[in-house]
Protein backbone atom coordinates (compact mmCIF):
# COMPACT_ATOMS: atom_id res chain seq x y z
CA UNK A 1 0.00 0.00 0.00
CA UNK A 2 1.48 3.36 -0.95
CA UNK A 3 -1.57 5.59 -0.88
CA UNK A 4 -3.52 7.37 1.78
CA UNK A 5 -5.80 10.37 1.94
CA UNK A 6 -4.25 13.32 3.77
CA UNK A 7 -7.72 14.51 4.84
CA UNK A 8 -8.56 11.18 6.44
CA UNK A 9 -5.18 11.09 8.12
CA UNK A 10 -5.91 14.52 9.61
CA UNK A 11 -9.26 13.36 10.97
CA UNK A 12 -7.46 10.45 12.54
CA UNK A 13 -4.90 12.88 13.96
CA UNK A 14 -7.66 14.94 15.62
CA UNK A 15 -9.07 11.76 17.16
CA UNK A 16 -5.62 10.71 18.36
CA UNK A 17 -5.08 14.17 19.87
CA UNK A 18 -8.26 13.74 21.92
CA UNK A 19 -7.01 10.27 23.01
CA UNK A 20 -3.56 11.66 23.84
CA UNK A 21 -5.07 14.37 26.03
CA UNK A 22 -7.44 12.07 27.89
CA UNK A 23 -7.01 8.30 27.91
CA UNK A 24 -3.29 8.02 27.17
CA UNK A 25 -2.37 10.59 29.80
CA UNK A 26 -4.11 8.42 32.38
CA UNK A 27 -1.85 5.52 31.40
CA UNK A 28 1.32 7.61 31.45
CA UNK A 29 4.37 5.88 32.86
CA UNK A 30 6.40 8.14 35.20
CA UNK A 31 4.92 11.12 33.36
CA UNK A 32 5.89 9.78 29.91
CA UNK A 33 3.25 8.71 27.43
CA UNK A 34 3.29 7.41 23.87
CA UNK A 35 3.23 10.12 21.22
CA UNK A 36 0.49 8.78 18.98
CA UNK A 37 0.61 11.76 16.62
CA UNK A 38 4.31 11.24 16.01
CA UNK A 39 3.68 7.56 15.21
CA UNK A 40 1.07 8.72 12.72
CA UNK A 41 3.49 11.25 11.20
CA UNK A 42 6.08 8.47 10.77
CA UNK A 43 3.41 6.39 9.03
CA UNK A 44 2.60 9.37 6.82
CA UNK A 45 6.25 9.78 5.82
CA UNK A 46 6.95 6.07 5.35
CA UNK A 47 3.91 5.33 3.19
CA UNK A 48 3.36 8.62 1.33
CA UNK A 49 2.52 8.53 -2.40
CA UNK A 50 5.24 11.09 -3.03
CA UNK A 51 7.49 13.27 -0.93
CA UNK A 52 5.23 16.35 -1.15
CA UNK A 53 2.32 14.43 0.36
CA UNK A 54 4.57 12.99 3.07
CA UNK A 55 5.95 16.40 4.02
CA UNK A 56 2.54 18.07 4.00
CA UNK A 57 0.93 15.30 6.08
CA UNK A 58 3.77 15.34 8.66
CA UNK A 59 3.58 19.13 8.91
CA UNK A 60 -0.19 19.18 9.32
CA UNK A 61 -0.10 16.44 11.97
CA UNK A 62 2.46 18.55 13.84
CA UNK A 63 0.10 21.49 13.59
CA UNK A 64 -2.71 19.41 15.10
CA UNK A 65 -0.39 18.60 17.99
CA UNK A 66 0.38 22.30 18.39
CA UNK A 67 -3.34 23.01 18.84
CA UNK A 68 -3.30 21.06 22.11
CA UNK A 69 -0.15 22.59 23.53
CA UNK A 70 0.70 25.71 25.47
CA UNK A 71 3.96 26.02 23.54
CA UNK A 72 4.46 28.27 20.50
CA UNK A 73 2.23 27.49 17.52
CA UNK A 74 4.26 25.89 14.73
CA UNK A 75 6.92 24.27 16.91
CA UNK A 76 5.72 20.69 16.54
CA UNK A 77 4.83 21.35 12.90
CA UNK A 78 8.46 22.29 12.31
CA UNK A 79 9.85 19.33 14.27
CA UNK A 80 7.51 16.83 12.61
CA UNK A 81 8.44 18.31 9.23
CA UNK A 82 12.12 17.72 10.02
CA UNK A 83 11.46 14.14 11.10
CA UNK A 84 9.26 13.53 8.04
CA UNK A 85 11.89 14.97 5.66
CA UNK A 86 14.59 12.64 7.03
CA UNK A 87 12.29 9.59 6.86
CA UNK A 88 11.36 10.46 3.25
CA UNK A 89 15.03 10.81 2.38
CA UNK A 90 16.02 7.40 3.74
CA UNK A 91 12.90 5.37 3.04
CA UNK A 92 14.24 4.19 -0.33
CA UNK A 93 16.87 2.14 1.43
CA UNK A 94 14.49 0.84 4.10
CA UNK A 95 12.17 -2.14 4.08
CA UNK A 96 9.29 -0.03 5.41
CA UNK A 97 6.80 -2.89 5.91
CA UNK A 98 9.15 -4.44 8.47
CA UNK A 99 8.05 -3.87 12.10
CA UNK A 100 11.71 -3.51 13.07
CA UNK A 101 12.15 -0.63 10.61
CA UNK A 102 9.01 1.08 11.91
CA UNK A 103 10.18 0.58 15.50
CA UNK A 104 13.64 2.06 14.86
CA UNK A 105 12.42 4.95 12.70
CA UNK A 106 9.76 5.96 15.24
CA UNK A 107 12.18 5.63 18.17
CA UNK A 108 14.76 7.90 16.55
CA UNK A 109 12.10 10.38 15.41
CA UNK A 110 10.60 10.48 18.93
CA UNK A 111 14.03 11.08 20.48
CA UNK A 112 14.67 13.96 18.03
CA UNK A 113 11.27 15.62 18.50
CA UNK A 114 11.30 15.29 22.30
CA UNK A 115 14.86 16.53 22.73
CA UNK A 116 14.40 19.47 20.38
CA UNK A 117 11.08 20.44 22.01
CA UNK A 118 12.65 20.18 25.48
CA UNK A 119 15.50 22.42 24.37
CA UNK A 120 13.11 25.06 23.02
CA UNK A 121 11.00 24.99 26.20
CA UNK A 122 14.09 25.14 28.43
CA UNK A 123 15.40 28.16 26.53
CA UNK A 124 12.10 30.00 26.18
CA UNK A 125 10.30 29.47 29.50
CA UNK A 126 12.62 27.97 32.03
CA UNK A 127 14.91 25.21 33.12
CA UNK A 128 13.89 21.59 32.95
CA UNK A 129 16.19 19.35 35.02
CA UNK A 130 18.51 17.27 32.81
CA UNK A 131 17.37 14.05 34.51
CA UNK A 132 13.76 14.78 33.59
CA UNK A 133 14.72 15.50 29.96
CA UNK A 134 16.75 12.32 29.48
CA UNK A 135 14.42 9.99 31.39
CA UNK A 136 11.22 11.27 29.86
CA UNK A 137 12.65 11.40 26.32
CA UNK A 138 13.86 7.79 26.39
CA UNK A 139 10.76 6.40 28.07
CA UNK A 140 8.43 8.34 25.81
CA UNK A 141 10.39 7.29 22.69
CA UNK A 142 10.24 3.64 23.76
CA UNK A 143 6.48 3.82 24.35
CA UNK A 144 5.96 5.64 21.04
CA UNK A 145 8.02 3.09 19.12
CA UNK A 146 6.21 0.21 20.80
CA UNK A 147 2.88 1.76 19.82
CA UNK A 148 3.99 2.45 16.25
CA UNK A 149 4.16 -1.23 15.27
CA UNK A 150 0.50 -2.12 16.03
CA UNK A 151 -0.66 1.28 14.78
CA UNK A 152 1.10 0.98 11.43
CA UNK A 153 -0.07 -2.64 11.13
CA UNK A 154 -3.68 -1.57 11.77
CA UNK A 155 -3.52 1.28 9.26
CA UNK A 156 -1.83 -1.00 6.73
CA UNK A 157 -4.47 -3.72 7.12
CA UNK A 158 -7.60 -1.61 7.58
CA UNK A 159 -6.99 0.51 4.49
CA UNK A 160 -10.44 2.11 4.58
CA UNK A 161 -9.28 4.03 7.65
CA UNK A 162 -6.84 6.14 5.68
CA UNK A 163 -7.70 5.73 1.96
Amino acid at each position, binding site marked *: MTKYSTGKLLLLAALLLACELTVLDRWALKGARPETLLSLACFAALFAR*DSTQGLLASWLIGLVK*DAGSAGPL*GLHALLFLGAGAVVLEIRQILFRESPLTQLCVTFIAACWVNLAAALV*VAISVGGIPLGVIVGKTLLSALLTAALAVPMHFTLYQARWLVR
Partner: protein
Amino acid sequence: MGSRRRRSATWLLLGLSLVLLLLPSGVSQKTRLSALAGFLPLQGLSRWTLRLPGSWGTSPGELETLRTQNDFLQDQQVKVTHENQRLALLLEQALGMKQTVRDQNFRLLAADVIFPTDSSPWRKSITITLGTRGGAEKGLLVVYNNQVVGRIVETGPWTSRVQTVTDPGFRAGAVAAPRTTASGVAFSERHGGVYEGTAGQNGLIKWFGGETPVENGAAVLTTEDPANGVPRGLSLGRITSVNLGRGALPRADVEPLLDFRSLEHVMILIPPPDFRAAALSGGKP
Protein backbone atom coordinates in the same frame (compact mmCIF):
# COMPACT_ATOMS: atom_id res chain seq x y z
CA MET B 1 12.42 17.10 -11.05
CA GLY B 2 11.09 15.14 -8.06
CA SER B 3 13.88 16.21 -5.79
CA ARG B 4 13.41 19.86 -6.80
CA ARG B 5 9.69 19.61 -5.94
CA ARG B 6 10.53 18.03 -2.62
CA ARG B 7 13.02 20.74 -1.84
CA SER B 8 10.59 23.51 -2.69
CA ALA B 9 7.85 21.87 -0.58
CA THR B 10 10.25 21.56 2.36
CA TRP B 11 11.26 25.22 2.13
CA LEU B 12 7.65 26.34 1.78
CA LEU B 13 6.51 24.41 4.87
CA LEU B 14 9.62 25.48 6.77
CA GLY B 15 8.82 29.09 5.97
CA LEU B 16 5.20 28.63 7.04
CA SER B 17 6.34 27.11 10.34
CA LEU B 18 8.62 30.06 10.99
CA VAL B 19 5.82 32.50 10.17
CA LEU B 20 3.56 30.69 12.65
CA LEU B 21 6.30 30.76 15.29
CA LEU B 22 6.78 34.48 14.78
CA LEU B 23 3.07 35.33 14.77
CA PRO B 24 1.97 37.54 17.67
CA SER B 25 0.81 35.23 20.47
CA GLY B 26 -2.56 36.99 20.61
CA VAL B 27 -3.41 35.80 17.09
CA SER B 28 -2.12 32.23 17.41
CA GLN B 29 -3.66 31.70 20.87
CA LYS B 30 -7.14 32.67 19.77
CA THR B 31 -6.92 30.52 16.64
CA ARG B 32 -5.92 27.35 18.38
CA LEU B 33 -8.19 27.79 21.40
CA SER B 34 -11.07 28.29 18.97
CA ALA B 35 -9.96 25.09 17.24
CA LEU B 36 -9.91 23.30 20.58
CA ALA B 37 -13.47 24.49 21.24
CA GLY B 38 -14.37 22.06 18.44
CA PHE B 39 -13.70 19.28 20.93
CA LEU B 40 -16.34 20.57 23.38
CA PRO B 41 -18.98 18.05 22.18
CA LEU B 42 -16.61 15.22 23.13
CA GLN B 43 -16.99 16.22 26.76
CA GLY B 44 -20.62 15.12 26.85
CA LEU B 45 -20.30 12.32 24.32
CA SER B 46 -19.72 9.51 26.79
CA ARG B 47 -22.64 10.66 28.95
CA TRP B 48 -24.84 10.93 25.87
CA THR B 49 -24.04 7.38 24.71
CA LEU B 50 -25.29 6.04 28.07
CA ARG B 51 -28.72 7.40 27.21
CA LEU B 52 -29.00 5.41 23.99
CA PRO B 53 -31.44 2.48 24.18
CA GLY B 54 -29.85 -0.93 24.60
CA SER B 55 -31.85 -2.57 21.80
CA TRP B 56 -33.73 -1.51 18.70
CA GLY B 57 -36.76 -2.81 16.85
CA THR B 58 -39.01 -4.22 19.65
CA SER B 59 -42.75 -3.57 19.25
CA PRO B 60 -43.96 -0.86 21.65
CA GLY B 61 -46.64 -2.71 23.63
CA GLU B 62 -48.00 -1.30 26.89
CA LEU B 63 -45.44 -3.18 28.96
CA GLU B 64 -42.67 -1.92 26.72
CA THR B 65 -43.98 1.66 27.03
CA LEU B 66 -44.03 1.41 30.82
CA ARG B 67 -40.56 -0.09 30.83
CA THR B 68 -39.30 2.73 28.63
CA GLN B 69 -40.93 5.31 30.89
CA ASN B 70 -39.40 3.63 33.92
CA ASP B 71 -35.97 3.64 32.28
CA PHE B 72 -36.42 7.28 31.36
CA LEU B 73 -37.37 8.26 34.93
CA GLN B 74 -34.48 6.26 36.37
CA ASP B 75 -32.18 8.00 33.93
CA GLN B 76 -33.58 11.39 34.95
CA GLN B 77 -33.01 10.52 38.60
CA VAL B 78 -29.41 9.52 37.93
CA LYS B 79 -28.90 12.76 36.00
CA VAL B 80 -30.35 14.86 38.81
CA THR B 81 -28.21 13.00 41.37
CA HIS B 82 -25.08 13.65 39.29
CA GLU B 83 -25.98 17.31 38.89
CA ASN B 84 -26.58 17.53 42.63
CA GLN B 85 -23.17 15.98 43.32
CA ARG B 86 -21.52 18.37 40.87
CA LEU B 87 -23.11 21.40 42.48
CA ALA B 88 -22.24 20.13 45.96
CA LEU B 89 -18.62 19.78 44.81
CA LEU B 90 -18.58 23.31 43.42
CA LEU B 91 -20.07 24.66 46.65
CA GLU B 92 -17.49 22.77 48.69
CA GLN B 93 -14.70 24.22 46.55
CA ALA B 94 -16.09 27.72 46.87
CA LEU B 95 -16.44 27.41 50.65
CA GLY B 96 -12.93 25.98 51.02
CA MET B 97 -11.56 28.83 48.97
CA LYS B 98 -13.57 31.46 50.83
CA GLN B 99 -11.98 30.34 54.11
CA THR B 100 -8.58 31.27 52.72
CA VAL B 101 -9.53 34.61 51.18
CA ARG B 102 -12.55 35.47 53.33
CA ASP B 103 -11.51 39.03 54.12
CA GLN B 104 -10.29 39.96 50.65
CA ASN B 105 -13.47 40.02 48.52
CA PHE B 106 -12.20 37.69 45.81
CA ARG B 107 -14.77 36.55 43.28
CA LEU B 108 -14.91 32.96 42.02
CA LEU B 109 -15.96 31.72 38.59
CA ALA B 110 -16.61 28.01 38.06
CA ALA B 111 -15.34 26.26 34.93
CA ASP B 112 -15.32 22.68 33.65
CA VAL B 113 -12.14 21.02 32.44
CA ILE B 114 -12.16 19.77 28.81
CA PHE B 115 -8.63 18.42 28.57
CA PRO B 116 -6.71 17.77 31.78
CA THR B 117 -3.30 17.79 30.11
CA ASP B 118 -1.09 19.25 27.37
CA SER B 119 -0.13 17.54 24.12
CA SER B 120 3.54 18.46 24.60
CA PRO B 121 5.44 16.33 27.13
CA TRP B 122 7.35 19.40 28.27
CA ARG B 123 4.43 21.70 28.97
CA LYS B 124 1.77 21.20 31.62
CA SER B 125 -1.56 22.82 30.97
CA ILE B 126 -5.27 22.13 31.17
CA THR B 127 -8.03 23.47 28.94
CA ILE B 128 -11.18 24.84 30.57
CA THR B 129 -14.61 25.74 29.25
CA LEU B 130 -14.55 29.40 30.11
CA GLY B 131 -13.24 32.03 27.76
CA THR B 132 -13.25 35.78 27.47
CA ARG B 133 -17.03 35.74 26.94
CA GLY B 134 -17.44 34.15 30.39
CA GLY B 135 -15.06 36.56 32.13
CA ALA B 136 -11.75 34.67 31.92
CA GLU B 137 -8.65 36.83 31.58
CA LYS B 138 -5.00 36.16 31.02
CA GLY B 139 -3.01 36.02 34.27
CA LEU B 140 -5.86 35.03 36.59
CA LEU B 141 -5.17 32.33 39.15
CA VAL B 142 -7.07 29.04 38.93
CA VAL B 143 -7.74 27.07 42.09
CA TYR B 144 -9.41 23.90 43.31
CA ASN B 145 -10.57 24.28 46.88
CA ASN B 146 -7.59 26.10 48.40
CA GLN B 147 -5.02 24.43 46.11
CA VAL B 148 -3.47 26.38 43.27
CA VAL B 149 -4.07 24.66 39.93
CA GLY B 150 -2.25 27.26 37.84
CA ARG B 151 -2.61 30.49 35.93
CA ILE B 152 -4.51 31.35 32.75
CA VAL B 153 -2.03 31.89 29.92
CA GLU B 154 -4.24 31.84 26.83
CA THR B 155 -7.83 32.89 26.37
CA GLY B 156 -10.19 32.23 23.51
CA PRO B 157 -13.85 33.22 23.23
CA TRP B 158 -15.14 29.95 24.74
CA THR B 159 -12.09 28.21 26.19
CA SER B 160 -8.92 29.10 28.07
CA ARG B 161 -5.64 27.35 28.67
CA VAL B 162 -4.32 27.15 32.23
CA GLN B 163 -0.60 26.70 32.84
CA THR B 164 -0.50 24.32 35.83
CA VAL B 165 1.91 24.65 38.74
CA THR B 166 4.15 21.89 37.31
CA ASP B 167 4.73 23.76 34.00
CA PRO B 168 8.32 25.04 33.69
CA GLY B 169 6.94 28.52 32.99
CA PHE B 170 4.95 28.76 36.25
CA ARG B 171 6.50 30.85 39.00
CA ALA B 172 5.10 32.19 42.26
CA GLY B 173 6.34 33.54 45.56
CA ALA B 174 6.10 30.75 48.15
CA VAL B 175 6.92 29.87 51.70
CA ALA B 176 7.39 26.46 53.31
CA ALA B 177 5.35 26.08 56.49
CA PRO B 178 6.79 23.34 58.68
CA ARG B 179 4.39 20.50 59.46
CA THR B 180 4.79 20.97 63.19
CA THR B 181 3.85 24.65 63.25
CA ALA B 182 1.67 24.93 60.16
CA SER B 183 -1.35 26.13 62.12
CA GLY B 184 0.32 29.07 63.78
CA VAL B 185 2.91 30.17 61.24
CA ALA B 186 3.37 33.90 60.57
CA PHE B 187 4.31 34.42 56.93
CA SER B 188 5.74 37.89 57.33
CA GLU B 189 8.47 36.57 59.59
CA ARG B 190 9.46 33.69 57.33
CA HIS B 191 11.87 33.78 54.43
CA GLY B 192 9.96 33.43 51.22
CA GLY B 193 11.32 31.63 48.19
CA VAL B 194 10.35 31.15 44.59
CA TYR B 195 8.29 28.18 43.48
CA GLU B 196 8.61 26.98 39.88
CA GLY B 197 7.46 24.03 37.79
CA THR B 198 9.86 21.54 36.22
CA ALA B 199 7.80 19.80 33.48
CA GLY B 200 7.96 16.68 35.65
CA GLN B 201 5.44 15.56 38.22
CA ASN B 202 6.90 17.81 40.92
CA GLY B 203 7.74 21.47 41.30
CA LEU B 204 10.71 23.13 42.95
CA ILE B 205 11.09 25.81 45.62
CA LYS B 206 14.37 27.69 45.65
CA TRP B 207 16.05 30.86 46.82
CA PHE B 208 14.59 30.66 50.29
CA GLY B 209 16.80 31.67 53.20
CA GLY B 210 19.15 28.93 54.36
CA GLU B 211 18.24 29.43 58.00
CA THR B 212 14.59 28.69 57.28
CA PRO B 213 13.87 25.25 58.69
CA VAL B 214 12.34 23.09 55.96
CA GLU B 215 11.41 19.47 56.44
CA ASN B 216 9.87 16.74 54.35
CA GLY B 217 6.09 16.95 54.40
CA ALA B 218 6.05 20.71 55.02
CA ALA B 219 3.25 22.55 53.24
CA VAL B 220 4.29 25.05 50.55
CA LEU B 221 1.97 28.07 50.53
CA THR B 222 1.75 31.17 48.38
CA THR B 223 2.92 34.51 49.69
CA GLU B 224 0.85 37.60 48.93
CA ASP B 225 1.52 39.01 45.47
CA PRO B 226 -1.18 41.62 44.75
CA ALA B 227 0.39 42.68 41.45
CA ASN B 228 -0.28 39.20 40.07
CA GLY B 229 -3.56 38.70 41.95
CA VAL B 230 -2.21 36.02 44.28
CA PRO B 231 -3.50 35.99 47.87
CA ARG B 232 -1.39 34.45 50.61
CA GLY B 233 -1.98 31.02 52.09
CA LEU B 234 -3.03 29.03 49.01
CA SER B 235 -1.46 25.60 48.85
CA LEU B 236 1.08 24.76 46.14
CA GLY B 237 1.99 21.32 47.45
CA ARG B 238 4.10 19.46 49.96
CA ILE B 239 7.88 19.13 50.24
CA THR B 240 9.14 15.66 49.37
CA SER B 241 12.91 16.17 49.57
CA VAL B 242 15.37 18.92 50.42
CA ASN B 243 18.60 19.28 48.47
CA LEU B 244 21.18 21.35 50.34
CA GLY B 245 23.64 20.86 47.44
CA ARG B 246 26.76 22.91 46.82
CA GLY B 247 25.03 26.27 46.37
CA ALA B 248 24.46 28.85 49.08
CA LEU B 249 20.72 28.26 49.15
CA PRO B 250 18.88 24.95 49.37
CA ARG B 251 16.29 23.69 46.90
CA ALA B 252 13.35 21.48 47.73
CA ASP B 253 11.13 19.27 45.60
CA VAL B 254 7.45 20.07 45.94
CA GLU B 255 4.77 17.52 45.14
CA PRO B 256 1.38 19.02 44.24
CA LEU B 257 -1.45 17.65 46.34
CA LEU B 258 -3.78 17.62 43.35
CA ASP B 259 -3.84 15.05 40.58
CA PHE B 260 -4.52 17.39 37.65
CA ARG B 261 -5.61 14.46 35.48
CA SER B 262 -8.62 13.88 37.73
CA LEU B 263 -9.87 17.47 37.74
CA GLU B 264 -13.38 17.97 36.39
CA HIS B 265 -14.12 21.47 37.71
CA VAL B 266 -11.94 24.38 38.79
CA MET B 267 -12.51 27.90 40.07
CA ILE B 268 -11.06 31.07 38.60
CA LEU B 269 -10.03 33.54 41.27
CA ILE B 270 -10.85 37.14 40.39
CA PRO B 271 -9.22 39.68 42.69
CA PRO B 272 -11.13 42.82 43.70
CA PRO B 273 -10.11 45.90 41.65
CA ASP B 274 -8.47 47.60 44.64
CA PHE B 275 -6.28 44.54 45.36
CA ARG B 276 -4.16 45.03 42.23
CA ALA B 277 -4.47 48.80 42.11
CA ALA B 278 -3.05 49.20 45.62
CA ALA B 279 -0.06 47.02 44.76
CA LEU B 280 0.64 48.88 41.54
CA SER B 281 0.42 52.25 43.29
CA GLY B 282 2.80 51.00 45.98
CA GLY B 283 0.33 51.23 48.87
CA LYS B 284 -1.01 48.51 51.12
CA PRO B 285 -4.11 46.68 49.84
